[in-house]
């Protein structure tokens, strides 16, 4: 791995972020404006005019875009139209709630998904493997919202053990985290299993055995490092999944995080807040993928030659 490789990746990442924000900007402008949401249907034409002039909505889209872009580059993302305060701070105030959920869910996903996948692959074609895979198939073929609704039905309505929405106590965490973990852990388990199985049939595993390593040494030193490469690769897709999962989960469980804010702001055309969230999400995605590329190059010495050599 060399510096040109990293510079190329960074340039490409910046381009991606710019394209995503521009695209969202245009889509939002094409799909109506916040006047009705804020002022209501009965507002007088003068009030509408004044509101549009205040937020610059009467300018052509091109002018609005230039203003947005030059402000954004200087770090000013504008104010929330609904709340009147800085869009950035209104997003940041909800960020910890979402991060809490995501960190716990991520940790559990990795722990459960990868370890189940490993067990399944090492006990391939035994009853352990089959049980794990049946659960995993059931898990990943169920949509997130169905999991959420079923959990609410069982634990809130029938058993009345857990609160169905809101935040605050540790009980509030359980169902959102379960919702986010079940589907993703199932995906990871399946993927880990197939990655491991593929590696276990590679010729170099035979060499490792022929050398005189014990079975466990073969797994630890030769199978795992090679299986880690495809697993790291899907982390890039997975970060997208977990964000999408957060949006749905937060909306269903009334969790005061960024996901719910995004849905609310889109509904009411709160342009600047949506823009901030989209920027945040695309930066997260891009940074994750960038670090995956770097980890990848570190895990697999072939990467900087093979991938660029084509």
């Amino acid at each position: 791995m060399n510096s040109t490789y990293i510079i190329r990746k960074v340039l490409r990442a910046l381009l991606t972020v710019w394209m995503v924000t521009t695209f969202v900007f245009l889509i939002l402008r094409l799909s109506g404006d916040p006047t009705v949401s804020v002022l209501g249907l009965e507002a007088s034409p003068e009030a509408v005019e004044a509101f549009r002039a205040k937020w610059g909505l009467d300018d052509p889209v091109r002018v609005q875009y230039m203003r947005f872009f030059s402000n954004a580059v200087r770090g000013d993302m504008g104010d929330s139209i609904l709340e009147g305060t800085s869009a950035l701070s209104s997003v940041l105030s909800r960020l910890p709630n979402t991060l809490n959920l995501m960190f716990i869910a991520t940790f559990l996903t990795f722990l459960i998904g990868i370890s189940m996948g490993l067990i399944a692959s090492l006990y391939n074609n035994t009853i352990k493997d089959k049980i794990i895979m049946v659960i995993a198939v059931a898990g990943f073929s169920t949509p997130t919202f169905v999991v959420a609704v079923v959990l609410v039905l069982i634990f809130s309505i029938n058993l009345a053990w857990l609160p169905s929405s809101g935040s605050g106590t540790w009980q509030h965490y359980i169902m959102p985290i379960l919702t986010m973990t079940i589907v993703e852990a199932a995906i990871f388990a399946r993927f880990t299993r197939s990655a491991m199985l593929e590696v276990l049939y590679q010729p170099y595993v035979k060499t490792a055995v022929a050398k005189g390593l014990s079975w466990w040494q073969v797994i630890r030193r030769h199978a795992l490092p090679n299986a880690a490469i495809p697993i790291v690769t899907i982390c890039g897709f997975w970060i997208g999944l977990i964000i999408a999962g957060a949006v749905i989960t937060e909306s269903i469980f009334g969790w005061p995080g960024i996901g719910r804010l995004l849905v609310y702001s889109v509904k009411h055309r709160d342009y600047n807040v949506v823009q901030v969230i989209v920027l945040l999400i695309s930066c997260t995605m891009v940074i994750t993928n960038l670090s995956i590329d770097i980890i990848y190059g570190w895990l697999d010495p072939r990467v900087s030659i093979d991938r660029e050599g084509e």
Partner: protein
Amino acid sequence: MEQVTEILEVKNLSKKFHLKKQKMPWQKKKYVHVLNDINFTVNTGEALGIVGESGCGKSTTAKIIMDIYSPTSGTIKFKSNELTGLKGEEKKRIRRNIQYVFQDPMGALNPRIPVVEQVYEPLIIHYGRNIKEQYQKAVSLLESVGMSESLGKMYPHQLSGGQRQRVVLARAMILEPEILICDEPISALDVSIQSQVVNLLMKIREERGITLIFISHDLSMIRHLCDSTAVMYMGNIVEQGLSETVFPNPLHPYTKSLINAIPIPDPRVKREDTIVEGEIPSLLNPPSGCRFHPRCPVAMAKCSKKVPELKILSDGRKAACFAVEKGVVQ
């Protein structure tokens, strides 16, 4: 004696591939020179063997003749037609006189179509559809390569490697080409099957008077099958001549070491232990002068500075070596 006519002439053929390693627009493009100024002619009815180790450019030469790659410079003449500039209908008409057989018959066949249909498919492409007649022709051709009609109705995966290679051969023959280029056609086959295919090739040559270009790393097969041989090393022809001149008495040090390296299945034959040292250098960073000089047992100071030309020697063969010119090598 029959009159000797040239059927194919390859002149000053060079090929460089550029590496897509250029990461930033301001970096310089890198090239690999795969072929350097290749010249040879093939006479009608002759079998020419092109031999060499990996990276010598033997397959690239074939692929350029087949128009799979375009040459960086140089010309290829079929009879009196310049092949490189042809277009449209004329190209199709002239090109069908040259056919190609790949190393990997499984990859060259469509797994979902019965093989007999694949044999007559070229006829449809070149002459339009006339299934009944074309089917008959395909079946009789398959029979001539030792395959029954019932085998023709099978799919490639149902056939053995040798049978697949027969199918590919039949498909190449159906347009009645004048030149057949075989690119390592037997390397993937078992020894007992190789001789079947080679004997078949010899039979086809005898019956149809076809011109054969046989590309292989198997020197003994080349000696057996080909009238003349061109030995290539890192994109250059280093020695070329009649097989019965070159093989019993190779002159170029590379040809010598190559022939010496071929194991002979006769334990009574004891040969001097003259194994050439070192590896084939990377084409990305080829040695200066004669490309063989770092491994050459008779290299002189001159060899690292100048590229020796392929010169005609008194016995009619050509060799590109300063030591041969000087008479150092007998």
